[in-house]
């Protein structure tokens, strides 16, 4: 599974992308965040305040209960400020 970080979430994560292999039970974005946040302190901080984290699965906006699986591209970022 490919993970991407943007804007200040990337600054906090200290990386823009990584390849991860969460355990088989990790079936939703919410579960993925739980697992990532438990991996190391750096990720714990990225997801400290989940209310300001938005996400996309395969380049579409997603919700916490959106399914994820091997091969998916999951991105985390703050609310967008384009336009």
């Amino acid at each position, binding site marked *: 599974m490919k993970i*991407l970080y*943007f*804007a*200040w979430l990337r600054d906090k994560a200290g990386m823009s992308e990584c390849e991860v292999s969460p355990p088989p039970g990790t079936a939703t974005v919410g579960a993925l965040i739980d697992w990532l946040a438990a991996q190391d302190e750096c990720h714990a901080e990225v997801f400290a305040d989940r209310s300001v984290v938005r996400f*996309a699965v395969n*380049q*579409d*906006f997603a919700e916490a209960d959106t399914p994820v699986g091997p091969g998916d591209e999951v*991105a985390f*970022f*703050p*609310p*967008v*400020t*384009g*336009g």
Partner: protein
Amino acid sequence: MIRVQREVFDVGREIAALTAGNTRIGGVASFVGLVRDLGGLRSMTLEHYPGMTERQLEKIDAEAHRRWPLEASLIVHRYGRLEPGEPIVLTITASAHRQAAFDSCNFLMDWLKTEAPFWKREEGADGERWVAAREDDDEARERWRETG
């Protein structure tokens, strides 16, 4: 049509290209968003999510065509480092009817603000900071919610 680019755009040329040869068009609305300096801004850097950006812009553009009788439309969004006064984004809509052109152009901008994966970082005299999302952008987007 949509484009994501570093380069500046020329509104007149874009309108001309978009409307050329189509005499069913009666009105062309356009909007240009500029880097505003509220005091001490040196530059603004726009980061985006390549791939998702194009995908979302295509969706927003298609949604405008679904809602209004448009003859043509264009979204151009820049990324990278921009200075105060520089154009960031361009939306153009062309229709037989002027109100359809106005409304759809307004719609494109409101949706872009909340649906396009761009993030702004400002560089001021006191360093850099990420721009926070605005609540009134969410409200502006909600105006276009279809009911019933």
